[in-house]
């Protein structure tokens, strides 16, 4: 039993979860108050929007592209969510659907013209931010009550965030890793030529993945304003880098369709917890920023140590 648990492949897959556990234990040690329903909620509720953004980024990375605009896009969704969706729900819903359609169109454009996605999404990051500023020139707006209600749901035993994060991870895992079309989608990242030679449309896979990214980006924006109650065009610019880091922390790779949805969710949580861990350490302000780098390095170095131990076996 133990022997089967300690196989290299298992260790490698369990690594993200292991890092998360260690971090969580360290936080509990530093701040026992965190070990409660209330504490866990405070620690983790902002991880949910990051997890959604990370999943969105992962969809794009699956087909060997990269989205430098996801942060700005989440900001736009937040702006729409706190204004139109609240005041004129139909218009708001239509606008959000429109955003997803634009994402799908980006996928098509990138595929048909064989463009580098980095440039296109970089350009789109300006467009999203500009649109957000038009929708919401100064911060404000109000989140629709139903979103607020969902995000503040009192669930039994564990906070809503944790259920939601597990739910997202599992659903996307089934969609991409277990379903039969998911295989084709990942295959399109692994060897596009082989997939098209098997008679699949690469255009369709690209469009699907980009539309999915748009969808999860939308969930990210909406869940975010559910927590903040109002919006700001600049609210999530940082999500671009965070989401990339989350995918990689979770064991994904930039090219080749090697991804892990559950790992990505765990990666997003690890990033959130890492920042909290630091504030519990009460470092001098000068070094607080540097420590964020330090903790990322530590978490990843931990992986390197395990990987090396595994290689030696």
């Amino acid at each position, binding site marked *: 039993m133990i022997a089967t648990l300690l196989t290299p492949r298992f260790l490698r897959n369990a690594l993200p979860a292991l890092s998360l556990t260690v971090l969580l234990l360290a936080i509990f040690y530093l701040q026992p108050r965190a070990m409660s329903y209330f504490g866990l909620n405070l620690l983790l509720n902002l991880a949910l929007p990051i997890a959604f953004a990370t999943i969105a980024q992962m969809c794009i990375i699956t087909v060997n592209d990269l989205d430098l605009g996801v942060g700005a896009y989440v900001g736009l969704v937040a702006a729409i969510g706190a204004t139109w969706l609240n005041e004129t729900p139909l218009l708001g819903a239509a606008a959000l659907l429109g955003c997803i359609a634009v994402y799908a169109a980006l996928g098509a454009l990138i595929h048909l013209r064989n463009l580098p996605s980095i440039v296109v999404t970089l350009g789109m990051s300006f467009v999203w931010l500009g649109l957000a500023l038009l929708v919401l020139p100064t911060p404000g707006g109000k989140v629709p009550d139903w979103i607020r209600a969902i995000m503040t749901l009192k669930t039994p035993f564990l906070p809503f965030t944790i259920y939601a994060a597990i739910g997202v991870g599992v659903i996307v895992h089934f969609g991409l890793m277990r379903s*039969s079309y998911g295989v084709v989608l990942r295959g399109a990242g692994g060897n596009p030529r082989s997939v098209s030679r098997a008679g699949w449309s690469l255009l369709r896979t690209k469009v699907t993945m980009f539309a999915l990214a748009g969808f999860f980006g939308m969930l990210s924006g909406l869940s975010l304003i559910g927590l903040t109650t109002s919006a700001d065009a600049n609210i999530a610019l940082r999500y671009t880098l965070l989401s990339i880091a989350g995918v990689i922390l979770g064991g994904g790779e930039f090219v080749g369709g*090697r991804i892990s949805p559950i790992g990505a969710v765990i990666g997003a949580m690890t990033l959130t917890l890492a920042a909290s861990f630091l504030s519990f350490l009460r470092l001098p302000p000068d070094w607080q920023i540097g420590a964020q780098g330090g903790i990322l390095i530590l978490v990843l170095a931990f992986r390197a140590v395990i990987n090396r131990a595994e290689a030696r076996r």
Partner: protein
Amino acid sequence: MSEADHSIVRLDGVEKHFGAVHALNTVDLVVTPGECLGLVGHNGAGKSTLMNVLAGTQIPDQGRIVIRGIDSTDGYTVATAKQHGIRCVFQELSLCPNLTVAENARVMHRALTGFGWRRRAAALILRDLDEIFPGHGIASQEIVGDLSIAKRQMVEIARAFSVTDAPADLVILDEPTSSLDAVVAQQLLTFVRRHVAAGGACVLISHLLGEVLSTADRIVVMRDGAVVEVRKASDFDRDSLVTAMGSVAKDGDGAGAAYASKRADGSPKVRARPAGQVEGPDLTAHAGEIVGLAGLAGHGQTDMLIQLHAARPSTRHTHVHGPVALVAGDRQTDGIFPLWSIAGNITIRSIRHLLRHALIDAAAEREMASQWQQRIGIRTPDMENNILSLSGGNQQKALFARALASDAEILLMDDPMRGVDVGTKQEVYRIIRDEAANGRTFIWYTTEMDELKHCDHVYVFRDGAIVADLTRREVTEEKLLHASFEAAE
């Protein structure tokens, strides 16, 4: 012609140009059910291009594609081909390395969906693997990228023969045995015969003429983009086939010449022990020696070469004296720089010696490239063309040129003749012998029995260890097989 009426496919007057290259020149081809069609020709003759047309991955400039008597030229795509039961194992392997074996089967089969598809996909691919390659040792949940190239090739072949709702009436095999060892290759050829006996059809492309002669019913010979001969296989023999291809048969000259040990004088250039091996013979190679690595594919020969390449100058169990160059066998992952020209791909190993005033001398580079184009016969109008514009065999020649042109005293070769045509092979064997005579050392992993006859010494690998050390005189097929399968006593 009556055969045209019940043919699976008929190509009429197919033309294909790539820029200045006339890859296919009014080619006609017929494949009928129940036959294995052999397709041979020199490197760059147009075989793969023709098969790409047939499989729908390349659109011909002109000509008709007739499927079961119906003209399907317009809008002919991969999907059309698949629908009509035409499958292709391409020369450059095309599996998704990030997916498992079973998932790769799913990519091929639209019908594998719905509840329990994973189980069905695994069963499907394992059934075909078991049938074609008994004892293959591949699990359906293995990630393809973790498999050796031989196993990847086996998976791809099995996948092409697997049947769900779409039939596999015509399976095209473009150099399927290039990375397989003799035992596995024979399994495949036996299966091909069973397949056609059951009413299926195959196109078999190979540079191992023996395979084609023994397996095909009819043989089509191509030369410079045109079909030059179509005859029953029994009407050909090796010599007439080589002649038809336009090469001069110089069979076996030099090979099997009297063995004279070169080990008497001097210390060895290379001495090494496979990483996992505790006891048994070390691998040793002296200046001017050609040392063969044998055994079944995937038993550690490539690892040995990598170990030698990484050990410059020396590590504990590995001593390598002198500069080293490697000729990759898995050219896509280990050899080719896909964005560079042919010339750039050849000179990269030698750029340090092409410097003038610390800068790379473009003229010297061109000079080296064209010199080796001549010596090794790379078929291209311009060495500045992209490397991927070459046919598979010609790419391999470019990799050969890269290593031979370098200053290396020790050349490591990882089954380097994959996809090289007969005529060129003879040419390369000659170069190897000449270079060895000049004092270069060759360490040569090969999956072809015939090539071991060129070696002074042969080490047989099994399970990552050397199990036998044979001199040229001792090398026989029987001995090799024995060592490959049985523990060495």
